[in-house]
C-alpha cells in the first residue's frame, strides 16, 4: 500500500471508529432507563 493510502485509511478508522467510541462514552454518561413492565406487554 502507498503511504498516502495508508494515511487515508487510518484517518477513516480514527474518525469513524473513534467517533463510535466517543458516542458510546457519551451515551454511557446517562442511565439506561428501562421501560416499566406494564408498557412492553405488546398485546
Amino acid at each position: 500500500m502507498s503511504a498516502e493510502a495508508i494515511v487515508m485509511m487510518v484517518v477513516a478508522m480514527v474518525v469513524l471508529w473513534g467517533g463510535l467510541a466517543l458516542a458510546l462514552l457519551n451515551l454511557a454518561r446517562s442511565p439506561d432507563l428501562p421501560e416499566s413492565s406494564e408498557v412492553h406487554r405488546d398485546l
Partner: protein
Amino acid sequence: MSTTVHEQAEARRGAFSSRRVFVLAAIGSAVGLGNIWRFPYVAYENGGGAFVIPYLVALLTAGIPFLFLDYALGHRSRGSAPLAFARTRRATEGLGWWQVAICFMIAVYYAAVIAWALRYTFFSFDEAWGDDPEGFLFGDFLQAGDPGVDATIVPGVLVPLALVWIAVLVVMVLGVQKGIGATSVVFIPVLVIAFAALVVRSLFLPGAGEGLDALFTPDWGALGDAAVWAAAFGQIFFSLSVGFGIMITYASYVHRRTDMTGSGLVVGFANSGFELLAGIGVFAALGFMAQANGVAVGEVATDGLGLAFIAFPTIISEAPAGALIGVLFFGSLVFAGITSLISVIEVVVSAVRDKFEMTRRNAALVVTIPSALLSLVFFSTTSGVYVLDIVDHFINRFGILLVAVVSMLVLAWVVRAMPMLADHMNRNGSVRLGQWWLVLVSVVAPAALAYVLVRELIDNVQEAYEGYPGWMLGVFGWGAAAAVLVVGFVAARLRWRHPEALTIPDDRVVTEEGGQP
C-alpha cells in the same frame, strides 16, 4: 397504582425494554445490504481515500441531523409514521402513509435478496457455481430469461424465500421487544463478529494490500466534482434508513426520558463504522481476486448483485478455505438483511395497528401474509431478478428520497415544527439541538438531498435504466413510485376510530401515576 388511558395505550403498542435494545435494533435497521455491497464501490468510484471528506460532511450535516429529526417525530408523538405525522399536524398524515407504502414495497423485494444470500451460504460449501458464477447465477439458480414477466416458478428460490417470510412472520407476531428487540440483540453482535472474521481472513489473502490501495488512494481532484458530493449524500442517506418511517416507528417504542440524541450519535457512527469495515473486507478480497486473475483491481471492482453473487463466488472458489469466506460473507448478508427487513415490515405493522386498533398478532398476520404472497409471486419466478432491479432502483430514488425531501420541507416550512421538535429532544438529550440543527434540517440537508434527487431525475428521464423495455420501467419503476404516493394519500383519508388517538399521550400523567422515577 392506577393506570391511565395513555398507559394502557402504550401497553398495547409495545416498547423496547431498554435503550440498549433500541440502539441495537436501530443499528440492525441501518446496517443492511447497502453497507456491505454498496458503500465500498461508491467510495472507490468517488475519490477513494478522498471520499472520506464528503462522506463525513454528509454524515454530520445531513445524516445524523436527519436521524435526530426522525427520532424527534416518533419519540415525541409516540406513534407509527402516519400517527406521528398526524399528531404533529393532522393534514400531514398522508406523508406517513406514503412512507408506509414504500416500506411495504421494499419488503416485498428485499426478502428475495436475503433468500438468495441464504441459498448461497449453502452453495459456498460445495462451490455449486463451478467455474462460471455468472452463468450459474442467471442460468442455473435464477433461471432468468429475457427481461419481461414470466410466471414460471423457480423452486430453488421459492423455498428459501418462503423460509425468510416464515422467520419474519414469527418475529412480527412476537412483537417489539420479544421479536425485533430479541432478534437484534443476538444478530447484531453475531454480524459484527462474523464480518470481522471475514475481514481478518481477507487481509491475509495475497493481493489484499493492492485492494486496499485501490480503495484508499485519494484522488483529490474528485473533491471538485459535484457528482462525488452527490454520491456521498446519497450513500449516507440510503445507508442510515432515515426518512421513510423506520426510525420514527422505532423511536416511538423508546422510554420517554431516554437520551435520544446520544443514542442517535451511536447509531450514526456504528452504521458508518460498519461500512468502513465492509469496505476493508470487500476490497481486500477484490485485491486477491485481481491478483489471482492477473488484472488490475479496477477490472474486478463492482457492487450490488454482481459483487455478492458473481465476484464473491469467484473469490470463494479461488481462495484457500473459500467455504469459510463464503459462509461468513453470505451469512453476514443474511443477518444484516433480516434485521433491516423486519424494520421495514414493522413500519407497516405499526401503522396498521395504530390506525385500525388491531392486536399485534392480527396486524402481523394482516401485513406479513400479503407481503409474503406478493413477494413469492413476483420474485420466485424466472423474471424476478429484472423486476427486482427496476423496483429497487426507482423506489430508492423516487420513493424514499422523494418522500424524505418532501416531508423535511413540509415539516420545516409549512408546519414549522422544527423548533418544537428540537425542544422535545433537548429535554433529555445529551447533544443540544440549537440553531445549527434547525439550519441543517431546514436548509442544508433538504437542499443537498433535493440536488441528489434532481440529478437522478434527469439521468433517469434522459436514459432508460439499464436499457430495460419502456413498459417495464413504466410499470415497475415510475408506476411503482407513483403507486406508493397515491396509496399513501388514499390511506390517509380513512377515518381514525377514536379521534382522541390524534392527541399525544400526556407524559406528565404517566410520570406521576405509574412511570419510572
